[in-house]
């Protein structure tokens, strides 16, 4: 098997036309033609969170009880998190069909029906995977026609949720590792850098620096050892594409790393991955073992004379380690504090050797670029942003999950055509992109094309591509506060503006959303001055901070100030939060008609702000009330009125 597949990696397209035998064998390995049923269950982290583990158990029991010879394959995530658990069934000679929200109790009915070649009437079908070799299910749409998938252009996510992530055989049978071996056997590093530069690929981790250009710095630096680091420390809250790629298609990453290492002349590499991603780590470990077994990693790969090894380094929880020099310090066993650049890591990085750090998504694009050529990749996207981009959709949106679209797709298209718009008839307010470094896109900017430059124009940034959707129930001051709180906790503490400035900005925001203090004069003026201070502090932090984290730290505040200043003013002057999020600005009173005088609220009130005698209606002393809402939580008679 191994020898067969190794040969396959080296074969060209022409070889295959003449060899039907090989073709057939590959179809079996690649599960295009099968001889017994296969049940696929999406068991990425999000799938498991939605109960895919239980679903898988139920499937196993079902097969055992009914004595059916079928295999179960645990795939990664296809991207449609809100439909998890997703269960696909492929019968010999039949198209693979996909069901959504398959909780364990639904397994029996679905399998009963499918094994008798019927579509279960009550279950939701996502679609079927069309194939020329097998028969289609009637009345079922091709999955590629599903609204969520149709506008997508999947390069990085191509295999995610579809193939068995821990089967190198399947990856190879689907054309995997061919690009890498081609590169090893036929290319020069200079050429590879040129191709990648010509493709227009830019770093997907946030900065957007042209990848090929960056590689050339390292390629042109003489050194006895160079390093490649894959940055999988996806710290941006709201982004999870790196996790999904590693869980769903780890070999694509390995192949990309191999190509990158060749391009820069590195023989050693690290995957720096968050410890919070245990499943991704486990699958990556398995994939690395498989690649070693196939001789794709190790010494003298396929007799090319080239060595390449990949080690896993687990991050230990520090957002700042997404910054290149901090990440390097972390691998070196130091505190993850950034250092001044230059020297840039590309010239002097890990262990003071030239080091290239690329993000998972960047690397996962490489096999495609090598296979299809720079021009093909560059044909997608906009003028300065080529190819596709994966986005993580979450928040107040109908369909959550991962999508991959060509650069230049509009925000509106993503939110409304792909992700189904805002649920519960709520009004859209904003979408936050770029996480703690990014900003907001508002209604009026929904038609901008998503690419590096146009996002910067509206005061946001690509970041790693997390899109968190907010509706009318979201308070933008609160969102700003959330990011400021995050960033001041995650600041490494090294440079003064970021360390001291972010906490002061948070304090100002806290003051704006805090309960009015009784007897306080000119407090509105103080808070209003706070806004001016936010802007001043924000500017100094942006301009003087040591690293990218600090330089972008004020963005969420400045962006919300720019687009939602009225919300700030409402908090300051009217002391209300119309989204009802800033709890301290709520006022509480008791509906005397409902209150039974049970005294529970008075006992639980942490501020002793509720008075009243037993079995008589109680009252809240407004000056004492801290607006914590505990009375409402404990009241069994719905007697608390919140304004």
């Amino acid at each position, binding site marked *: 098997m191994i020898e067969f597949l190794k040969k396959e990696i080296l074969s060209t397209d022409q070889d295959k036309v003449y060899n039907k035998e090989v073709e057939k064998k590959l179809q079996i390995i690649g599960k295009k033609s099968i001889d017994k049923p296969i049940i696929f269950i999406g068991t990425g*982290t999000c799938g498991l*969170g939605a109960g895919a583990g239980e679903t898988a158990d139920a499937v196993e029991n079902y097969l055992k009880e009914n004595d059916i010879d079928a295999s179960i394959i645990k795939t990664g995530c296809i991207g449609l998190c809100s439909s998890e658990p997703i269960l696909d069934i492929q019968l010999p000679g039949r198209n693979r069909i996909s069901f959504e929200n398959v909780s364990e109790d639904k397994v029996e009915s679905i399998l009963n029906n499918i094994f008798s070649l019927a579509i279960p009437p009550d279950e939701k079908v996502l679609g079927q995977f069309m194939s020329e070799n097998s028969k289609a299910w009637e009345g079922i749409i091709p999955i590629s026609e599903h609204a969520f998938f149709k506008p997508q252009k999947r390069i990085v996510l191509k295999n995610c949720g579809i193939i068995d992530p821990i089967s190198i055989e399947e990856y190879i049978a689907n054309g995997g590792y061919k690009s890498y071996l081609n590169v090893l056997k036929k290319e020069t590093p200079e050429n590879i850098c040129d191709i990648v530069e010509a493709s227009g690929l830019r770093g997907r981790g946030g900065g957007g620096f042209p990848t090929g250009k960056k590689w050339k710095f390292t390629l042109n630096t003489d050194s006895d050892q160079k390093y490649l680091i894959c940055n999988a420390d996806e710290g941006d*809250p709201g982004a999870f594409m790196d996790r999904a790629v590693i869980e769903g298609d780890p070999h694509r990453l390995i192949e990309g790393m191999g190509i990158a290492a060749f391009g820069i002349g590195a023989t050693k590499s690290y995957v720096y991955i968050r410890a*919070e991603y245990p499943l991704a780590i486990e699958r990556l470990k398995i994939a690395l073992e498989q690649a070693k077994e196939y001789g794709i990693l190790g010494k003298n790969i396929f007799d090319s004379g080239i060595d390449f090894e990949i080690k896993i380094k*687990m*991050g230990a*929880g520090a957002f700042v380690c997404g910054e290149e020099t901090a990440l390097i310090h*972390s691998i070196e*066993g130091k505190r993850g504090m950034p250092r001044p650049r230059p020297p840039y890591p590309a010239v002097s990085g890990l262990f003071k050797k030239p080091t290239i750090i690329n993000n998972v998504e960047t690397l996962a694009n490489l096999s495609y670029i090598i296979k299809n050529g720079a021009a093909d990749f560059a044909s997608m996207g906009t003028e300065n942003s080529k190819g596709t981009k994966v986005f993580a959709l979450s928040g107040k949106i109908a369909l959550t999950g991962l999508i991959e679209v060509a650069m230049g797709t509009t925000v509106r298209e993503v939110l409304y055509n792909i992700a189904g718009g805002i649920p519960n008839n709520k009004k859209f307010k904003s979408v936050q992109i770029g996480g703690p470094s990014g900003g907001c896109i508002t209604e009026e900017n929904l038609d901008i094309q998503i690419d590096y430059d146009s996002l910067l124009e509206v005061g946001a940034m690509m970041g790693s591509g997390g899109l968190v959707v907010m509706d009318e129930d979201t308070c933008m001051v609160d969102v700003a506060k959330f990011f400021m709180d995050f960033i001041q906790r995650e600041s490494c503490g090294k440079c003064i503006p970021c360390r001291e400035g972010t906490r002061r900005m948070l304090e100002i925001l806290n003051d704006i959303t805090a309960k009015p203090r009784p007897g306080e004069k000119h407090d509105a003026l103080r808070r209003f001055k706070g806004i001016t201070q936010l802007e001043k502090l924000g500017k100094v932090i942006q301009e003087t901070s040591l690293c990218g984290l600090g330089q972008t730290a004020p963005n969420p505040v400045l962006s919300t100030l720019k687009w939602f200043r009225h919300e700030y003013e409402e908090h300051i002057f009217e002391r209300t939060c119309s989204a009802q999020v800033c709890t301290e600005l709520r006022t509480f009173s008791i509906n005397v008609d409902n209150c039974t005088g049970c005294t529970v609220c008075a006992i639980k009130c942490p501020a002793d702000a509720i008075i009243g005698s037993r079995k008589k209606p109680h009252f809240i002393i407004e000056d004492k009330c801290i607006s914590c809402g505990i009375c409402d939580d404990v009241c069994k008679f719905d007697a608390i009125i919140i304004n």
Partner: protein
Amino acid sequence: MTSEVLTKYPEVGRDSLIPILQDIQDVEGWLSEESLSEVGRHLNLPVSKIYGVATFYNQFRFQPKGKYHVQICRGTACHVLGSSNVQKKLEQLLKVKADETTKDGKFSLEVVACIGACGLAPVISVNGKFHAKVTPDSIKKIIKSYKSKKDD
């Protein structure tokens, strides 16, 4: 137990520090002063440096972990969907604050930046098992189910 972990790392340099600390915490649940000093001797590194590194990263704990380790995700998506209320409720239910362990040693609470399951927000994880789309109400039931689990 620390020494057992260290036998897996013969002749290593400082770049093995974080993996060693992770391994020790895996085995012992937390990092004790004794463990850190032992690591210092093993790596020939001043213990202040080791303490400095360990306290830099969120992952490391300096208190024993509870029998059930509850992690609450405070990522953006979770926040927008109300994880701060979930956290409050958890702290109220367990009578501990983030990064603390209950007196009976049964529960420890940790706030994590983002678990990466944003599509299912808000999320908590108990001993690695995810609970999706939690609310202050559902969290009650979840905690209760662990509380009532027999000591095994």
